[in-house]
């Protein structure tokens, strides 16, 4: 059981104060990856299950569902979740590429983080235009 005990912990350079921390852009995109994941866990999953449940129930429930989602506030929530999904997916694909040692040098990593951020916003905007 040598793995279960360790020497007394030395002070480690942990710095996770979200308000004081200054992140470079890839770090900011990475933070958004985590943030969007948390949002989808807290809001996205129950909303998704509820949406699928009411949309397949019956034509009447489907129309009810559509009417509810047509409310401006609901559209805002949907748009927020769409952004969270798209950003999380694209940032995730970027992480997978980095895992495969694709685009790991500083310039490429900065560039790809910008691409993820902008494309996620652009796709969200397209969905927003279609929603309104």
């Amino acid at each position, binding site marked *: 059981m040598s793995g*279960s005990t360790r020497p*007394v912990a030395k002070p480690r350079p942990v710095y*996770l104060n979200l308000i004081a921390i200054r992140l470079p852009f890839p770090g900011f995109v990475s933070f958004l990856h985590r943030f969007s994941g948390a949002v989808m866990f807290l809001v996205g*999953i129950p909303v998704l*299950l509820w949406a699928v*449940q009411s949309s*397949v129930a019956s034509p009447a429930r489907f129309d009810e569902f559509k009417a509810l989602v047509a409310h401006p506030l609901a559209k805002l929530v949907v748009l927020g979740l769409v952004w969270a999904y798209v950003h999380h997916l694209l940032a995730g694909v970027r992480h*997978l590429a980095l895992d495969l040692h694709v685009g790991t040098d500083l310039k490429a990593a900065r560039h790809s983080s910008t691409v993820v951020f902008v494309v996620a916003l652009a796709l969200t905007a397209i969905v927003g235009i279609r929603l309104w």
Partner: protein
Amino acid sequence: MVNLVQKHAVGAHYGLRDWLAQRVTAVVMIGYTLLVAAIVLWHGGLDHATWQAVYANPAFKLATFLFMVALFWHAWVGVRNILMDYVKPVGVRLALQAAVIAALIAYTGWTIQVLWALQ
């Protein structure tokens, strides 16, 4: 004898397994996302009749179930990482982790109810 070693409330060897699970479940979800996007684009949007037809296909239901389970597993690894970073009191962290697990298991039950219309 004075015990100078400090025990940590962590396990061992799950790091690589979680890392791999996070990526495998991600690839599963990417595949499903592309499938749904292709279906929506193919039909040029979804009205209720089309959606019902797509949804009635047992293969689509199974794919949806696979996606949801991948999603819940992925959410567990991700949320646990967040809790490990930001919630330091062990008791609170364990309580929150237990709540997350309970929620995800409940969501799995809800998914089965929705997909196979159990009441």
